[in-house]
């Protein structure tokens, strides 16, 4: 295999692994957060506005870890710096 093929294969496999593992953690965390928020809502319906607002902020914060993994995946797939470097090298 030449270096371009190795880069392509490792980039694709790493992208899959990154988004897969990056989705697991936030999924569990969001499930726990929503479950606890529902319990809190059932116990204190009066505080629903505060709980919902805090829940949304918390969910977006948790989700951002998944978004980081997604950004890395997108960079690996669509604007891979190593790939671009070797393409320009072979072009010259």
């Amino acid at each position, binding site marked *: 295999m030449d270096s371009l093929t190795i880069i392509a294969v490792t980039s694709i496999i790493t992208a899959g692994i990154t988004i897969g593992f990056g989705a697991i953690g936030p999924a569990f965390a969001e499930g726990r957060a929503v479950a606890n928020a529902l319990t809190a809502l059932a116990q204190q319906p009066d505080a629903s506005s505060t709980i919902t607002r805090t829940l*949304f*902020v918390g969910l*977006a914060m948790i989700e*951002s870890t998944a978004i980081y993994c997604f*950004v890395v995946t*997108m*960079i690996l797939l669509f604007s891979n710096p190593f790939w671009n470097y070797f393409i320009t090298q072979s072009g010259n």
Partner: protein
Amino acid sequence: MQLSPDEIVYWQLGAIKLNATILFTWCLIVIFFISAKILERSLRQTDKRTRWQNALEIIVLGIEKQISSVGLSNPRQYMGFLGTLFLFVALANLLTVIPGYEPPTGSLSTTLSLALCVFVAVPYYGIKQRGLKDYLASYTQPTIIMLPFNVIGEISRTFALAVRLFGNIMSGTMIIAIMLLIAPFIFPIVMTALGLLTGMVQAYIFFILASVYIAAATSVNNTQTLTQTHKSPQLIKQPQEK
């Protein structure tokens, strides 16, 4: 497939590029400027108000309430900076309902510059409220050993703020692009609606995180108030258990 609106270049002269990010940011600035001029003309202090003034008052009072709920004591002082951040990000994300519009927040350069504004504003308000010496001493807060970690935290949270907004908006446009390839009939509309919700939530998150960072930098003696609030529930609880 393009990752950000930076890659759509309309006009180029040497190193100077006019890409979609810059163009749509200018459009947003023009919209803000014109609407502010029109709204300013209709402002009155009498009872007979226009509906635009009522809308503006709802927005201003809402932002003020959110800032004070974070713990900043004098919200009007931070209104100019934090309110502009919220309104800019919210409008940039909401205008995706217009066809052909590319949200400038879907580019890392826009979000990073907004985050750098927060990065500068936090020490500015901190020094203004507490004085230079007191603010710098807050970096060595628990012990002097924590100094490098506090500095790293300051930088990494700025970067996280930028990547969070960029990633959310970029993933929204990316999902719509993928949906157009596999199911181009109804699903892109549903995803656009979801993207509008995410955009508003992200604008709120960006604004509230910036206010939390400023509140943390400006609050004096926050450790003392924390210990006081921790003590008081225990004092109330003990008689109840008996």
